[in-house]
Structures are given as C-alpha cells and as structure tokens.
C-alpha cells in the first residue's frame, strides 16, 4: 500500500503534465477527446497519440535502463533502420514471418551487444561508443536495402503496423505489453536495484559482488531489442523499409522522454512508467501542434518551448524555490495564527 502511494507520488508530475497538455489541446479542439467504435476498433485523437508514440515509447523503455546505468544509447534510431531493413529484406526474399521477426530482433540485440562490449569491456564512454553505431548504422541499413525503399506486402508483417487487437492498434498493444513485462522483470527480480546500484556507484557495486559488466551489457542488449521492435513497427506501418528516414532523430526523442519522465541522466533511480508517460507527453504535444494548423515550420519551436517549460518546472532549483515559498507561506500562516 505504502509502496503504491510512493510510486504514484513519483509519477505525479508526469501525470499532471500529461493531463494538462491533453486538456489544453481539447480546449482548442473539443474533438480531441472523442472516441468512436468502428468495425470493432476504437478511433480518435487520443488513440492516435498512443499509436504514433509507439516507437518513442519502446525506445524509451530501453533508454531508461541504459540511462539508469549512467550510460546513454545514441544508436537506437539507426538500429531501428537496420532492423526494419532486415525485416523487409527477409520477408521479400520469401522467409516466413516468424523467421523474419526472430532475425530482426536478433540483429537488434546483436547491435546492443556490440554497444555493451564497447562500454563495459573496453570502457569507452557510452556517448562515444554508441555514436559509432549511430553513424555507421544508417549506412548498414542502406547497404541492406541497396539504397532504395524496400517495400513488401506480407499481410502478417503489415498487421504489426496497422492491425488491431481488442480494439487497440497493434503498436499500442505491443508497447504497453512490453513496457509492463520489462517493468515486472526489473521490479519483481533484483535487477532494478542492481542496475540502480551500478549506475550510482559502479566500483562500490563491483566490490559488493554485483556483476556490473554483465549487467551493463544486458542493458544495452535490451535497448537494442527495444529498437528492433520499434524498427519493425515503423517499417510495417509504411509497408517498407526506409533506411534514410526510419527512426531518424528518434534517439533524441527517446532521451527526452526519459528526462521528461524525471529520470536523472546521471544514472541511478529510474521509473519506466514515468518514461512512458514522458513519451506520451511528447507525442501529445506533436499531435496537438499538427491539429492546431500552425504552419509546420513552427512545430519544432513550439515543441521545444513546451519542453523547456516542463523541464524548468522539474528543475531542482525551481523545486527548491517552490518548496521555499511553500514553507514561508506556512510560516506566515503560523505567525498569523499566533497573532490571533
């Protein structure tokens, strides 16, 4: 009971911001909140937000763990492109859907293994280590697609991008289920605590017997797996693998989602749920701006301004300041009471 309460308290800022953003948009566009059932499937702008936000949400799951280890993974956008290309190439050359999915996921995990070895074994700074694959990855994807957009029309693969399950679009189902599964995995086992210990003080953790090297590599492998799933969804969505644009700049959105989720870039304490809320906040802003009909050239600036606002409200300085105001207000109240 107590744990639940402290968990909700941790998520409170993100929940408040998400509700505020949604309310703000619905003030301008009352339609934003309406949901309709058609052909056993729910339609509406809110569902769009959940659906469009799927790649960033998936990336944010892995990114949260990597950042908790005091690392960062810049390569996820490029890994998305690689895995989308692998899936498209495999399905068009006649392999089965299961084989294709397994292959694409394995390639994503292999990319993560590469990053993990650079970081954990060779002790290269994560930002540099993953930059290598960020730059090279898109080249690898282009080699796989031979420079063209590799289209396919396998119904099974397309279903992952645009099908629906229990009325929800497949991408939404996938990121929700995967997010819950990973959260349970790290919180129902000791993994979460060990990852946090590793992120806060790697040397002290090693001296306490934590297998820090293995944990680090596992974190990057998970990030690669998340990127692979996101890459398959992105390719299935457009029925083709676009090596140039699939997942472009999404690594930055994923990092942003983690930060908006209130996780420290210095590692340690983390919350996957908060990062997922962060991803939805970012997507709600994106969708809201699109709906608003502003000239598209304003989009990025408006998005940046809103995010700066969110980060300012979350910054330790402002929080201290608010706490100080709160204290002095209660002090004044106390003084008034005494005067009476």
């Amino acid at each position: 009971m107590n744990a639940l309460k402290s968990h909700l308290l941790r998520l409170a800022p993100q929940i408040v911001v998400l509700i505020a953003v949604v309310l703000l948009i619905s003030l301008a566009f009352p339609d934003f909140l309406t949901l309709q059932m058609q052909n056993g499937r729910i339609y509406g702008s809110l569902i769009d937000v959940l659906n469009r936000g799927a790649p960033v949400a998936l990336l944010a799951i892995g990114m949260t763990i990597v950042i908790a280890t005091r690392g960062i993974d810049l390569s996820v956008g490029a890994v998305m492109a690689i895995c989308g290309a692998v899936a498209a190439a495999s399905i068009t050359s006649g392999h089965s859907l299961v084989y294709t999915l397994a292959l694409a996921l394995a390639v994503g995990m292999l990319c993560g293994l590469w990053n993990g070895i650079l970081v954990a074994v060779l002790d290269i700074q994560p930002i540099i280590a993953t930059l290598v694959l960020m730059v090279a990855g898109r080249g690898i994807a282009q080699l796989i697609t031979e420079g063209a957009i590799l289209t396919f029309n396998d119904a099974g693969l397309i279903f992952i991008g645009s099908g629906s399950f229990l009325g929800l679009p497949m991408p939404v189902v996938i990121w929700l289920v995967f997010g819950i599964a990973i959260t349970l995995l790290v919180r129902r086992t000791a993994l979460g605590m060990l990852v946090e210990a590793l992120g806060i003080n790697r040397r002290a953790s090693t001296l306490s017997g934590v297998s820090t090297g293995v944990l680090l590599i596992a974190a990057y492998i998970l990030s690669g797996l998340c990127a692979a799933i996101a890459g398959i969804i992105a390719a299935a969505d457009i029925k083709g693998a676009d090596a140039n644009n699939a997942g472009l700049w999404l690594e930055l959105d994923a990092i942003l989602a983690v930060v908006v989720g209130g996780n420290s870039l210095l590692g340690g304490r983390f919350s996957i749920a908060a990062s997922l809320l962060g991803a939805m906040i970012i997507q709600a802003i994106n969708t809201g701006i699109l709906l608003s009909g502003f000239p598209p050239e304003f989009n990025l600036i408006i998005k940046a301004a809103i995010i700066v606002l969110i980060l300012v409200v979350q910054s330790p300085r402002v929080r201290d300041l608010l706490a100080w105001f709160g204290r002095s207000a209660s002090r004044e109240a106390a003084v008034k009471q005494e005067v009476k």
Partner: protein
Amino acid sequence: MQGNDDIILSATGIEKVFPGAKALNNVNFQLRRGEVHALLGENGAGKSTLVKCITGAYRRDGGKLVLDGAEIDPRDTFEAQRLGIGTVYQEVNLLPNLTVAENLFLGRQPRRFGLVDAAEMNRRARALLSGYELDVDVRTELSSCSVAVQQVVAIARAVDLSGKVLILDEPTASLDAHEVEMLFAIVRRLKSQGLGVIFITHFLEQVYAICDRITVLRNGQLVGTRDAAALPRRELIAMMLGRELGDEIKQAGNAQASEGAVRYRFRGYGRKGHIAPFDLEVRKGEVVGVAGLLGSGRTETAEILFGAEKADSGTAEVDGKPIDISSPRTAIRHRFGFCPEDRKTDGIIGDLSVRENIALALQARRGWARPISRAEQDRLADRYIAALDIRTSDREKPIRLLSGGNQQKAILARWLATNPEFLILDEPTRGIDVGAHAEIIRLIENLCEQGMSLIVISSELDELVAYSRRVIVLRDRAHVSELVGEEVTTSHIVEAIAAADKREAGQ
C-alpha cells in the same frame, strides 16, 4: 622562545565540524617568518582541513587567525591570496592551454588601450621568473612544460600574488629526485626572503631535508610542534601513528587467542607494481593487524586478498584446499568480505536507502533472479540498524545523508548480512567520531570471538595492538616484518616501520 614579531601567521583554537565528525578540535598552529614548517599526519588527520580553514576554502567553526599582527577572516581563497596567503596544490591548478606568461598574469594582465599588452606581459613574466633559475620561454604553452616547471610557475604566481605565506600541498608527489632538488632550492631562496612556508608531504626524508619545524596532527587534534633537528624519525612516526614511545600497555585479551589450525593461507601472493609477493596465514577467530605508513601497500594488500586486484603470483588456500579469488565475486563466494578505506567512492551507494545498501552484497550473491523479498530486506535492515546502532531516522533514508561513522557501520552490516567467514577491514575507524570508534572496536572483538577471521588495516596503532594477536608491518609495498603475541606493542610496530625507513635512508 622567539619574539612574537617573528610569527607571521598564527592560528589558535581552530575548530571545524563536519556532519558526524569533528575534523579539527582546538588546533593551534604558528608559522614564523623565514621558516619551512612541515604539516604532517596520516590521511584524515586534518592537514588539508586546517589548510583549507587558513585559506578560506572552508569556513572554520571556531578559533582565530592572525596574519602579520592583524586578525583576518578570509571568506574564500581569493581573499586569502589578497591578504598574502598563497597555495600551490599537488595537481597544478593553472590553465595548461595558456602560455607561461599568461598563467602568471591571469586576471591582471597589463593593458594598453584596453587590450592585453602581450609584450609588456612577457617582459614582466621574464623579470618575475628570473629569480627562479628557470630556463623557459614565457611564450610557450604551459602544457608543454614538465610538471616540475609547471609547479615552479604556480609557486611564482602564488608568491607574486601573496608574498607572506606560501602553502605547498604535496608539491613533490609527482616529481623525480632531481626536480625535487630544484624545487627545494627555490623554497630555500623564498625562505631567505622571509616568506613563511607550510609544507605538506608524505615523504619523511623530504621533511628532514628542508623543514625547520614540524607540526603533527592526528584525528583532528594537535599532537605537537617540534624542531625538526631535535625530533628523531622514530619519534616522529610515533607521533603520527599515535601512542608516545615507551608506552607499553599490552592489552590482555588478544594474547590468549587460540592456536588453532591455519584456515587461510596465502603463499607468495602479490602483484607487480602493487604489492611484493607475501606469505600470510590467518587462523579461525584470529585478528591479524596490518600496519605501515600511507603508501606502504596497506590498501593494496587488502585489494589483492579480496580479488579487487588480480594477483599475478602465488596461491591462496582455505582449509588446505586451493581457491581462486580473481574477482570480488569469487572471493564473496568463498565467504570473504571487504570494507574499503574510501567509503564514498568504494563503499556506499549514495542514493540508495540504508536498507538497500545493507541488502546489496547478499542480493548480489544470491543472483538477480532470486530477489530478497521486501519484508525480508526490512527485517535484515532493522536487525542490523539495531545491532550496530546505526543512527538513521528510518531505513529508507538515502545512505549519503548519514554521518561517516554510521555509513561505515551500514557497510559493515552489508557484509555481516552475508555471514562472512573472512572479513577484511581497511581503516574501519577513519574519519568517524570517538564514540563510534569504540563501538567498531568492540564489534571487531565480538566477531573474532564468534570465530570469524579478520584482517584489520589501521593507522591507529593503539587500536591495532588492542585487538590483534599478530601484526604485519608494511613498508614500500612489501611485507617487511611480522610481530606475534607478546611482541605486539606500539613501540615495536613503530620500531619496525622506522627500522626499514632507516635502512632505506642509509642506502
């Protein structure tokens, strides 16, 4: 007694309190004009805290500072510099990408028409350095100079800015013998100009080579100030490590420890560059003390025994069976535990709660797939918070908010929770207050009675003597001597350290 006007800097009754520990307790220190004054003590004795109080880097909590007859109260190092107190640190704090001249005149460059007058600056820099017998072009970048030259440039800048008191904080740590000589020549010249120099170092030979007087601190307290010429090396070591010479109290209790079978046996165990190969035997229920000066290989011994550093020679055995301890994980599997010296970097996981910090090693041994349930963790934490009297408002408090002594006890609890049979404690009582000191010593004795084997490294000799049946003495990264039973007294330990020291000096 010399006249009062000889004193250029006097600090009286300096107090500094950190959360949980008194870093300086009523320390008096006087520096004369034209003397080199060594400030000595083990790590955590309070040397750097005293220096920081003098230079304004820390706000002192009590006491008076008088410089040149006037009371001063520097708020930061800049103010201290302006008043006349300059400091040079071991890590040169200059800007390596600027030229020598720019470094010398940083923040006060000569100007012409509002722009830096480079020619004038270089001319003045050459004039300034002319007194230092340096053959260096002032227009070269500082980073292309040797560390020794950088050190001299730092000194020249500090003297030029301040000019009354110069504090040298381990300036020779990264210099070779020839460079040290060059530095000393400069210090002697500054001394003859009437500057007061405070010299902090760990090299006793250097102390005797250049210092006029010596002040020793231990545990934040003044042990004494003596003339270097009248203080034999042996006595100096005794001052630094505690216990006056001739104090022969042999604690009862440790002498009758059982003569059981050897449980842990290390033969020819060592690692190049860290610690020379050594033999070590530890019995069940025995405390083996490790003594030596800073840098003698104490911590290196602990790290190699725990697998934090891999041994490259020798064998390890438990109960006659060879074991492999090539990493902390394998050592822990053999029920080893290790409380490191540097709690902040090697011990605590600052942002995690006291509960999680206590459960960490046990959890790591069980593996991630078998989590310790929350209820079990709570029980574990509560049990050790009560047993070791860890003072915390509750078990969910981040451990970094606890005082040093309580952090130390929490780390001890982390290991006790794993039911260790062989525990290595590196400076378990460093930097914690006197009350916690006594508790930890009592705990060590209890553990030993329960049959645990312990290795305790400490620079507090009287503590070592109190609980050890055997003491290993280290010097220059090698085990040089072993004292057993009746031989374990503070004066024997000091003699063993000093004997090795003299042998070296005589070479």
